[in-house]
């Protein structure tokens, strides 16, 4: 890879120097505006050889002066500057050439026809857009220590809800205008016009059990990104048809620009720090708590050796520690990021080459992320009519992670995700990290007993051992190559042909050595090694023909026809072995006693076409119509086609005569858009009824083939229909710009993955099912104001706010909206209800404790104690018959029946934010610059599963310091709703899913503080021969205002089904980042 980059670099350097006929002659001069004689700083002067190639170049200084070393007397010089006509001079024998450039309306028009100012897909310029889109300029991103574009966008765009992951290399959850789909609602990522959707897909169980991240955002070097455009409503995403239903992020990368070759080197050093963890009990406090817990539950009991603190116990030294497990697996993270770019070009060729290497060590031990990316963007002008671009990028990344597992810890079938951080919270703190022998000497091994006081050594693993010894590593190679040919048939007709190839290969390596777990040699987990390989390829081609028959001051009419063909292929292979021969053989390709092989492949094809018409009258009235049709091989012939129309209109009222007197108004536009967009299921072959062999494959001696998948005759497109009403204002000499929008987005024929059907059909589920509706309705506002706009001092403030309300409008017929009415410790009953948002959850209302057993008598609506037939007071009971007693948790008895059961559950909240956004300012004074950006997210609830694990006091898990405030004797907890119940081993009801663990996740966060200084054009930079040096300090996420008691309210989560709700289960929290950044330009 590097070799290719060097080769290309070499070609470029040779091409631009071309010093064979070197003839040193310096030409000086000044470039001024024709007529006024004012100097033009920044104008480009290039030397063109007889072959019309640019071989050298420079730009004018502040006074319009320039000096250029001429390499050949045969060359000509070309002078250009945007907005002026170009001029070409034959230098002859001259050593001084002064030039006057005339302003050029024609030249600007020329640019427009080539199409760079207008979006090639819609044919509308940003200014004339009637749909809901936001463009964010990220060209200054190199001064901020973000590792992906998602990071940089957080809190910047109204309607764009981003939750970033804490672990290095983990993706972010991006939701545009609320959850509109079941499963994932991730937007489509488009990079330089190429849709990046090859790796999404659930055809294979890849076992990564991780947040499905938007890997594409992680794999692009943020410094390469010039701008990101967010397409929010269906009218704007319509051009992306079947893929953009959940919104589109259009990323534009930097390209070369005319002028001399520019080098840019950027280095960032970042220190990351995890937010403070929840304080946990020490080993001694833990032993005390356990004694109390067992005593309360069992009365007199035999004290287990592990908590007896008995020096004669052979494991005494292993069970008398005060280990802070969380601290042991937490570290200060550190990262380096080197970025190098080279860009430039002449009249014919523009080039941009970049190289980025970053290395990140996370805040949890053994988490890290390495990335190497290169990007080459070339533009070549073959003739005035024909332009050709090639984009090439390659990313190699390596994500280092820790083993995690799904275990049925409670024995009731509910699978909990156990990761090292969660385990560190619950692991008994009186256990030692390293094993001691009976004399107290270290044995050199991790302390991983088969059966500890807490239980099975495979479930209650040693988190430090797992973090240090296990692997859960993802290696990834991504490659993309695209060719774009632009041909101007005439001034009115353009053809735009794009062909792209994408390849992505991923490898997941998992290894769990024997020494990290407390298991015996025969256990299936011993030396577990697996390797998952997958690769996906996409080839797509797109032909766009645009026709602009009328373009004058009054009328502007243009139309486009687009035809697109895509093909995706995927393959995977998996090797898995267990009980491998050694703890140091990580490779699963050894002959271990148990092994498993699997492989598969799939292909998908899609055809799309688009017809659009744009019309503009007097620069005031804008109408745009788009009709997009898609066909996809994932659907059967009957439902294969999807038709997605959209229409948008805008009125630029500021151009109306009656508003011409309103001088403060520079631009004002009201716009309305309606559109539809589609979404297809992920699996390639879900629609087919499939017959397959089984295991065993024979009965007696005959082969078996059985139906394994139900044919989906009714599978069809999920359609998102959206309405958008917006206003754009620009006022006070464009110093204040405001955008406000109202939207209503309804998803029809929701796609349900793995829709459960009665087993009497012989199947458990339909792979996909269309049914039901979800609605997202809301408003957004954005404002930016240039407080000061002067040459030396600029201050800009910005603010955005978004309100979204999500609700189910309709369920499929026969859908059971109640799932799991289990009432048990640690479980929240789940329901999905019409009118309520996705991610709603139910549970009990916690009202503190019963101070005495008398207080635990059942009461009727009047608050009077209830009596039975024998005139005995009826105690409150739990569903299983347990009587509540003094010190037990008190839950509100909703129906006053004296029994705490499913009928007492209340709706406790949902995981969707109601209001979110951000605000901040940035400014510069001479060479100093500074900025500050806040992000906020409010109106959503988090189920704090870590608190649930660590405040229940009914098992042998370690508990947080909060439990020191627990009920111990009669009478405590009167009128104190915050009192914790008594410690009681295996109490069936003291830790039910209740509002005790539901917390508002609202937060306001100082996302970004930057302070920078740049040196340019002064004596120092000249002496060391550089153009500029910029240094800056960047602090990210250092300050958070929240009442959330967990480690971090920003929790990456993925909605798996309509019953999903957001829980904090102890993934690595988003760290605080402190960076120093230096950029050198020369």
């Amino acid at each position, binding site marked *: 890879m590097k070799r290719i980059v060097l080769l290309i670099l070499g070609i470029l350097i040779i091409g631009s120097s071309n010093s064979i006929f070197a003839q040193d002659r310096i030409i000086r001069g000044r470039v001024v505006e024709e007529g006024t004689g004012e100097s033009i700083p920044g104008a480009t002067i290039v030397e063109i050889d007889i072959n019309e190639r640019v071989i050298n170049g420079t730009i004018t200084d502040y006074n319009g002066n320039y000096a250029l070393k001429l390499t050949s007397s045969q060359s000509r010089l070309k002078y250009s500057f945007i907005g002026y006509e170009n001029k070409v001079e034959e230098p002859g024998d001259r050593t001084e050439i002064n030039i006057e450039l005339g302003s050029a309306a024609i030249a600007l028009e020329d640019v427009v026809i080539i199409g760079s100012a207008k979006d090639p897909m819609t044919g509308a310029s940003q200014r004339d857009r009637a749909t809901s889109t936001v463009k964010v300029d990220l060209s200054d991103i190199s001064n901020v220590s973000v590792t992906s574009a998602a990071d940089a966008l957080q809190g910047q765009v109204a309607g764009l809800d981003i939750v970033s992951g804490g672990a290095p290399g983990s993706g972010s959850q991006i939701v545009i205008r609320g959850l509109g789909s079941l499963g994932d609602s991730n937007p489509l990522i488009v990079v330089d016009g190429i849709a990046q959707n090859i790796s999404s897909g659930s055809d294979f169980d890849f076992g990564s059990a991780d947040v499905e991240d938007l890997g594409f955002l992680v794999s692009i070097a943020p410094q390469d990104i010039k701008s990101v455009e967010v397409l929010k409503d269906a009218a704007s995403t319509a051009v992306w048809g079947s893929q953009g239903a959940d919104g589109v992020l259009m990323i534009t990368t930097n390209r070369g620009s005319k002028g001399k070759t520019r080098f840019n080197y950027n280095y960032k050093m970042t220190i990351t720090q995890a937010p403070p963890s929840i304080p946990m009990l020490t080993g001694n406090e833990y032993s005390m708590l356990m004694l109390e817990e067992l005593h309360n539950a069992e009365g007199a009991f035999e004290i287990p050796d592990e908590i007896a603190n008995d020096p004669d116990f052979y494991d005494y030294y292993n069970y008398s520690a005060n280990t802070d497990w969380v601290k042991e697996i937490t570290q200060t993270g550190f990262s380096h990021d080197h970025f190098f770019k080279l860009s430039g070009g002449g009249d014919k060729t523009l080039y941009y080459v970049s190289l980025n290497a970053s290395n990140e060590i996370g805040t949890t031990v053994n988490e890290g992320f390495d990335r190497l990316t290169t990007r080459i963007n070339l533009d070549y002008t073959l003739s005035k009519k024909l332009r050709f671009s090639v984009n090439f990028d390659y990313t190699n990344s390596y994500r280092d992670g820790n083993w995690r597992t799904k275990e049925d810890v409670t024995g009731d079938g509910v699978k909990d995700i156990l990761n090292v951080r969660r385990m560190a919270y619950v692991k008994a703190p009186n256990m030692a990290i390293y094993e001691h022998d009976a004399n107290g000497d270290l044995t050199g091994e991790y302390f991983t007993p088969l059966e500890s006081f807490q239980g099975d050594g495979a479930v209650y693993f040693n988190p430090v051992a797992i973090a240090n010894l296990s692997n859960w590593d993802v290696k990834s190679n991504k490659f993309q190559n695209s060719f774009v*040919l632009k041909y101007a048939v005439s001034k009115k007709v353009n053809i735009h*042909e794009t*062909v792209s190839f994408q390849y992505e290969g991923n490898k997941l390596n998992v290894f769990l050595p024997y020494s990290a777990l407390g298991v015996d040699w025969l256990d299936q987990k011993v030396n577990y090694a697996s390797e998952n390989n997958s690769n996906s390829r996409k*080839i797509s*081609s797109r*032909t766009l023909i645009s026709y602009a028959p009328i373009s004058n001051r009054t009328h502007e009419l243009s139309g486009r026809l687009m*035809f697109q*063909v895509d093909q995706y292929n995927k393959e995977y292979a998996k090797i898995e072995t267990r009980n491998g021969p050694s703890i140091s053989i990580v490779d699963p390709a050894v002959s271990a006693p148990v092994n498993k092989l699997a492989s*598969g*492949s*799939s*292909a*998908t*094809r*899609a*055809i799309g076409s688009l017809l659009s018409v744009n019309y503009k009258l007097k620069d005031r009235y804008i109408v745009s119509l788009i009709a997009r049709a898609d*066909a*996809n*091989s994932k659907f059967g*012939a009957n439902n*294969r086609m999807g038709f997605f129309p959209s229409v948008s209109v805008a009125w630029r009222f500021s151009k109306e005569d009656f508003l011409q007197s309103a001088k403060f108004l520079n631009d004002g536009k009201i716009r309305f858009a309606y559109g539809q967009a589609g979404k297809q299921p992920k699996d*390639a*072959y879900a629609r*087919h*009824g*499939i*017959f*397959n062999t*089984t295991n*065993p*494959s*024979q*009965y*007696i001696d*005959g*082969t*078996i*083939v*059985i*139906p*394994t*998948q*139900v*044919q*989906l*005759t*009714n*599978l069809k497109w999920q359609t998102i229909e959206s309405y958008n009403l917006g206003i754009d204002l620009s006022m006070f000499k464009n110093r204040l710009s405001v955008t406000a929008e109202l939207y209503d987005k309804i998803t029809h024929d929701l796609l349900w993955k793995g829709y459960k*059907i*009665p*087993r*009497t*059909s*012989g*199947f458990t589920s*339909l792979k996909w099912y269309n049914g039901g509706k979800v609605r997202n309705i809301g408003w957004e506002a954005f404002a930016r104001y240039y407080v000061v706009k002067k040459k030396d001092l600029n201050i800009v403030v910005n603010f955005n706010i978004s309100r979204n309300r999500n609700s189910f409008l309709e369920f499929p017929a*026969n859908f*059971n909206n*109640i*799932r799991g009415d289990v009432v048990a410790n640690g479980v929240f009953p789940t329901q999905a209800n019409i009118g309520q948002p996705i991610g709603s959850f139910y549970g009990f209302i916690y009202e503190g404790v019963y101070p005495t057993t008398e207080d635990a008598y059942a009461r009727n609506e009047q608050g009077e104690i209830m009596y039975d037939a024998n005139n005995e007071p009826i105690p409150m009971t739990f569903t299983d018959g347990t009587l509540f007693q003094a010190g037990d948790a008190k839950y509100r008895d909703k129906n006053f029946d004296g029994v705490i059961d499913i009928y007492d559950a209340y709706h406790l909240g949902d995981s969707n934010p109601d209001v979110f956004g951000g605000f901040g300012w940035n400014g510069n004074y001479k060479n100093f610059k500074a900025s500050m950006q806040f992000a906020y997210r409010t109106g959503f609830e988090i189920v704090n599963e870590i608190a649930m694990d660590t405040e229940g006091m009914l098992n042998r898990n370690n508990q947080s310091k909060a439990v020191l405030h627990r009920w111990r004797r009669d009478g405590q907890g009167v009128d104190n709703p915050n009192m914790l119940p008594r410690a009681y081993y295996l109490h069936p009801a003291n830790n039910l899913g209740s509002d005790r663990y539901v917390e508002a996740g609202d937060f306001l966060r100082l996302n970004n503080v930057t302070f920078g200084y740049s040196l340019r054009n002064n004596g120092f930079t000249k002496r060391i021969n550089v153009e500029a040096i910029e240094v800056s300090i960047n602090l990210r996420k250092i300050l958070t205002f929240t009442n959330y008691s967990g480690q971090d309210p920003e929790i990456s989560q993925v909605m798996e089904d309509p019953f999903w709700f957001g829980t904090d289960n102890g993934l690595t929290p988003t760290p605080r980042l402190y960076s120093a950044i230096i950029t050198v330009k020369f």
Partner: protein
Amino acid sequence: MILLLVVLSSVKSCDWLELLPPDGLVFDEYWKTKEDVEATLLGAYSKFAIMDEKLFLYGEIRADMIDADEAPNYEKQIINSSIFSNNILADWMDFYEIINYCNNVIELAPKMYEENVDPTFTEFQMVSLQSEAIFLRSLAYFYLVRVFKDVPYITQPTIDDNIDFYVPKTPGDSILLYVVEDLKEFSLSISTDYGSNEKTKGRATKGALNALLADISLWNFQYEDCLEYIQNIDSLNQYYLMTSTTWFDIFQPGNSLESIFELQFDGNGQNNSLYDYTYNLDYYVSSPNAIRLLDPELSRERIRGFGSISTDFLEYKPWKYAGVAPDQKTARPSAIRKAANFIIYRYADIVLMKAEAYSQLGMFNEAEEEINKIRSRALMEPLTISTSEDAFEDAILEERAKEFAFEGKRWFDLMRMGRRNDFQRKNILIEIIIQDANSTQRLVLASKLSDPNGWYLPIYEDELERNANLVQNSYYVND
């Protein structure tokens, strides 16, 4: 552009978007040859075989012949009659998978034959395969009715998402009526022989079909019908009682002359699960009652005792799936470790069914003769039973307990007895079940069993959630 042109030229027919999965056949490609029909039918047999442990459990776990102290919790809960609708034994998925495979065969085989896609597919073959599917589907429903009483009755294959998935329950009595009709319709077209002994014993035959009909009529207390079906079996002259010395050949090597229908295992890929559960893992061991009935030292059950349970140093483990001979010592060698077939019907069953039908019709001499055939084969002295239905019922029940120990029949025998004459003798059932329970448990168990609805399992909780048209068995509603 070139790619586009290539694509455009191939797009015309829209076939370009018709992609088929590389692994697995799609519906349209399947059902092309008679082998396809047979392959799906064999899937139904295989599924029945895979669920051997379940068939064993449905017939034994609530009865008095096994203890299951080492078994998983959900099984212990059933033993203690603390049965909740989340117990996974209440999951009827396996049966309905079998039913779906059979429905595919029953529906699509005639269609295929009519469309003549496979010219070598004769009507005789078509009907024959259909008859086997009818037999397997009927057997599945018979199990379902005995285990759950009322269940959804489904006769259409689940081919695509256009069918109604939300089928309510049909009364078990009606289901059995339909089943009997089906079986009678196909009783003539079913084969009697499949060429090899394994297939003739391992696939549905005229004998098996009539045995199932006899069993169902006995369950429905239609004794004349039962005798008629048994007559059909006898007239085949295909099945004989094994001799005393060769009795254990029924289980090892299996597929004996006595066998009518047994699910086949070869121990080499097609493995039973009962070797592990009855021998290796000790999930299911003989109950005190089984030991009382079968212990060779006490009751002089020299043949059946030695063949049914192992000696005390092996904790009276069931021996039929684990032993190589009735010596109570030599376990199966590794090559055939998991090869013991699961016997659904053997001729001894027919003999005792006959005895039961005769005795219930008041033909006590004939009944006694049949019982004593089994006893003399077991080298036990003949019985002289007082001439009352109840006395015969008790004798036959005990004889069946010993003859079919651990063969997954006992609970259904007890239920048949308990249900007879409008639950006249349900207390006997209760007494038998509670006899070995500890004193505190006995009252609880007895009261739980006093409602016959509780003899059936509840509908699985998750299934109720999936299908709102299902109504839970009234016994379990207030849990």
